[in-house]
């Protein structure tokens, strides 16, 4: 069994940037791909800011920061992933987009390279089917914010080999994360519950039951949750929530998973959440969680 030393992360958005922090922090050479150089620059800046905060809080030795950053490299060229032992995809929740990406990676990466998807809703078996290597494909769903949350939902597809799953599980543990095995079903465990829950919260706003801030206060106070659904939705982003809804509702036809009209109107208005300074709540800055 070959050792995994270099990990590629596709997508420098909120999830991809967080996963890359986890990988680099654990000592892996970490390559980050995004089509947009500005996204890569932003992710690198956020990574440094997050690590600096970790040093200030005494969670990271100061001399570790430059060491970790030296492991982190960004690229807009997928060819730079040729030496990756594991590639974790964290791009749009779109099956054609994922198939296109993995089709290209299959030609670039070595046969031994394991492909993983951070999808939270799309079938691992379906993505694997367009990857060119369905036996070396696995689901690795990190939680938001990945750099702070330990859980990873590990899902084998129907075609995933036991060896691939076992290697990916070992890497997950080496990353310092806590893997749990889940079935390849829509939303796995977390999003099966979370997407409809968040939609229900948006519908309370649509129906005039309560203002967003009151909903968050109520849920946090009554249930002891660290974040209210409105804060979480703004962190996820309305654009991502819409894609999650479409992916899950498209498979399950579950009414609670259908995208609420307010989400579409907010996207049209550019109110995407924390990253644009306004979502269901308003924000003074768009700093990464924990930074």
């Amino acid at each position, binding site marked *: 069994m070959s050792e995994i030393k270099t990990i590629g992360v596709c997508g420098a958005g909120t999830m991809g940037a967080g996963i890359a922090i986890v990988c680099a922090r654990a000592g892996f050479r970490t390559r980050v791909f995004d089509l947009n150089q500005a996204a890569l620059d932003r992710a690198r800046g956020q990574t440094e800011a997050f690590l600096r905060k970790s040093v200030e809080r005494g969670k990271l030795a100061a001399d570790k920061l430059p060491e970790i950053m030296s492991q982190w490299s960004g690229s807009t060229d997928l060819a730079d992933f040729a030496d990756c032992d594991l590639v974790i995809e964290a791009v749009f929740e779109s099956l054609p987009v994922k198939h296109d990406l993995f089709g290209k990676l299959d030609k670039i990466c070595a046969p031994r390279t394991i492909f993983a998807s951070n999808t939270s809703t799309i079938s691992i078996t379906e993505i694997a089917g367009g990857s060119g290597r369905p036996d070396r494909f696995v689901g690795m769903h990190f939680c938001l914010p990945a750099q702070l949350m330990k859980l990873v939902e590990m899902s084998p597809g129907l075609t995933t080999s036991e060896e691939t799953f076992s290697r990916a599980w070992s890497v997950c543990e080496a990353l310092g994360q806590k893997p*749990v095995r889940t079935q390849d079903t829509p939303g796995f*465990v*977390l999003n099966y519950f979370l997407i409809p829950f968040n939609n229900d919260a948006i519908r309370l706003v649509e129906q*005039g039951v*309560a203002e967003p801030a009151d909903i968050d206060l*109520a*849920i946090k*106070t009554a249930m002891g949750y660290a974040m209210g659904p409105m804060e979480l939705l703004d962190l996820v982003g309305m654009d991502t929530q819409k894609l999650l809804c479409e992916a899950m509702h498209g498979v399950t036809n579950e009414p609670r998973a259908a995208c609420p009209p307010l989400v579409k109107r907010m996207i049209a208005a550019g109110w995407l959440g924390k990253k644009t300074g306004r979502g269901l709540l308003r924000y003074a800055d768009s700093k990464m969680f924990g930074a």
Partner: protein
Amino acid sequence: MTTSTYTIVKAGESRSFPASHAFVEQAAAQGASRVFIGQEAGSAFAAAGELGACPFVAIELGQECLGVHTAEARGHEGSNVVGFARFRLGRADPTALVELVRQPQTSDAAIAAARAAFEAAGLKVAVCADFPGRIVDRLIRPYLNAALRRLDEQLASAEDMDKTLCLGLGYPEGPISLLERTGLAEHHDVTLALYQALGQEAYAPARRAQVAKARTGR
């Protein structure tokens, strides 16, 4: 804002204040506002006569809407009367959350006065409109039902489902453990009431809740 003094009218067992609490202890014998608590709070309000001069009048609610006690009128309903319930899940102790219910034309002054009174007693207030389930029950009952259904469908063991939701979302307690602690039969009663009021399938009591309710009726 200066907190308005209030008098408590107790009418039966209160679900919000089953034990001594600062909100009850801070009440005055001759307060400017009036708070009706207990299962018969609505009846006590109806028998109280004219209360239009009070800064606020608060009626403790169960599952019912405030309009049951104050009436409704083409969307113009509202006065100095608010509804409230301190949230508690089944057999669990009441939480610090007070859901404060307003009707479309409820005065902002009455909301502010009621909020100040509850907050002065250390409670947290979320304002909501007069709908069945208010905020928390509307959101968590479908989630709890879904967890019970997925347990039946063997998505994961009860332990793994709880662990995943706690680790992944930072929840202090998973849904199955929460229902065991607070009562599956109690969940059945609340969610059935919401199902009847809202007609949405997500509120229909899950099989395990129905079984628990049937067993308690033996």
